[in-house]
């Protein structure tokens, strides 16, 4: 069963049409990387999947629920869709522990003990159990992003969205975040990742989607899209990304 099914998705901001008819699916357990130049609409597409952006038209079906249906319970659907942001967006006034437990407690109504158990489990998974009492501003960018991943995982999502998770990080901190994401992929998590990390896309992704100008130009396994692109625009983009300055 497909986890994500998007049909003829359009999104405009005022007169600016950012998504011009997107069709694509993510199968359960797949890792799909979305690449493309800035302004191509890839982040907007990702934000339409959990309706942080309201699509102008088209349908977005996640786990069999049509989120574009006006009667759909968006809050309920979002509980199962984890999201990791470029700027981490941890809650700076709360400790790491509270960041990971607050939604479990307030949204899933789990008991205090269970919240704590799940928080520890996921902080261990991202290697930051020793930072459980720290506040986000005391952590490095890479550590904050790993806490953000733990926060999303604590909700037991069936799908994880990553919006350029390493773009705001110092280069030496990127590796830690990518290795957490790689482990997640190996564990069978369904992942939709907007990224500029071509190495990660090539090694981890089951499929790579290349977007440009609000449409999907190319969609296929990484060995095809990255190693042997069929379209001129894809080739041009990849040569710029893979050989910068040439």
């Amino acid at each position, binding site marked *: 069963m497909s986890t994500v099914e998007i049909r003829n998705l359009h999104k405009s901001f005022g007169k600016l049409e950012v998504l011009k008819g997107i069709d694509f699916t993510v199968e359960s357990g797949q890792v799909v990387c979305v690449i493309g130049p800035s302004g191509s609409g890839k982040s907007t597409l990702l934000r339409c999947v*959990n309706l*942080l952006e309201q699509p102008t038209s088209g349908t977005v079906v996640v786990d069999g629920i049509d989120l574009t249906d006006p009667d759909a319970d968006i*809050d*309920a659907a*979002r*509980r199962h*869709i*984890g*999201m990791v*942001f470029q*700027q981490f*967006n*941890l*809650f*700076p*006034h709360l400790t790491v522990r509270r960041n990971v437990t*607050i*939604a479990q407690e*307030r*949204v*899933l109504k789990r008991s205090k003990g269970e919240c704590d158990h799940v928080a520890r489990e996921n902080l261990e998974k991202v290697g930051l159990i020793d930072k459980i009492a720290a506040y986000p*501003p005391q952590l490095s960018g890479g550590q904050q992003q790993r806490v*953000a991943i733990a*926060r*999303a995982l604590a*909700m037991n999502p069936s799908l994880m969205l990553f919006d350029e998770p390493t773009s705001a990080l110092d280069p030496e901190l990127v590796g830690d975040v990518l290795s957490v994401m790689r482990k997640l992929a190996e564990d069978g998590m369904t992942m939709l990742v907007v990224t500029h990390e071509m190495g990660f896309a090539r090694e981890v992704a089951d499929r790579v989607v290349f977007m440009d100008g609000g449409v999907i130009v190319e969609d296929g396994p990484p060995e095809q899209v990255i190693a042997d692109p069929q379209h001129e625009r894809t080739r041009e983009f990849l040569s710029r990304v893979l050989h910068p300055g040439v």
Partner: protein
Amino acid sequence: MSAVSEQQATTPTEPRKGLSPRKKQRISRSVQYAVLLVIVVVLAALADWGAIRESFLNLDVAGKGLPELFTVALRNTVIYTLSGFALGFVVGLVLALMRLSTVAPYRWISAIYIEIFRGLPILLIFLMIGSLPLAFPGFELPGGVYGSAALGLGVVSAAYMAENFRAGIQAVPKGQMEAARSLGMPHMRAMVSIVIPQAIRIVLPPLTNQLVSLLKDSSLVLMLGVTASQVELAKFGNDQSSTFANPTPILATGLTYLLITIPLGYVARRLEARQGAGR
């Protein structure tokens, strides 16, 4: 060294006319000191020191105001201020949320309220509260003067605090709301648990200043007509000074206000500085 550089600077061009800038500065500063000294000497010579000690620093009269100055007057001032602040805080927060609502009439109501109550003197508000029973016969505010004082100070400070809260909520990055929503929190839950706690931290300095001005405005409670047990600092000082025909109690109440306002102002500046450093 300065002589050399001065020479180097002046010799190539035309010879300097009049005084050097540094000398001018020195003369100007001497004149300022001299003016200050003259004013102090003249004032000291004109003042009647014996009368000042007798009228303003009369410890006998000041002692007669104790302990009521603190146990009644200061206590009531603090009660009026804090109850007005508490009401203003709650109503102000609600007004700020209405101001940011997607429901247009809520925005209008909040905007109109803020404009009206920021534009009226508190004195006038107290006079109107006194007339409320005319509009609603038999109506009586719970708490008597205490209730009326809280209402008067509350409705006005709510207008100011609403603007503070609105600015604070808008200063919380958009990503905070998005992260909370992405975890499945409904809008109101995210506001209460994530956005508002951060907004309150941001507006702590202006809120502290609001508390200071409310403390001073609480002196207008005397317009409500208070009994001896309900008296606050300013009226207490005024009453005592008429009783003893001596202005010392007014000076004493002034010092009592400063006892609170100066530390509070200091706290506000510290909070502001800490926030500036945290960014």
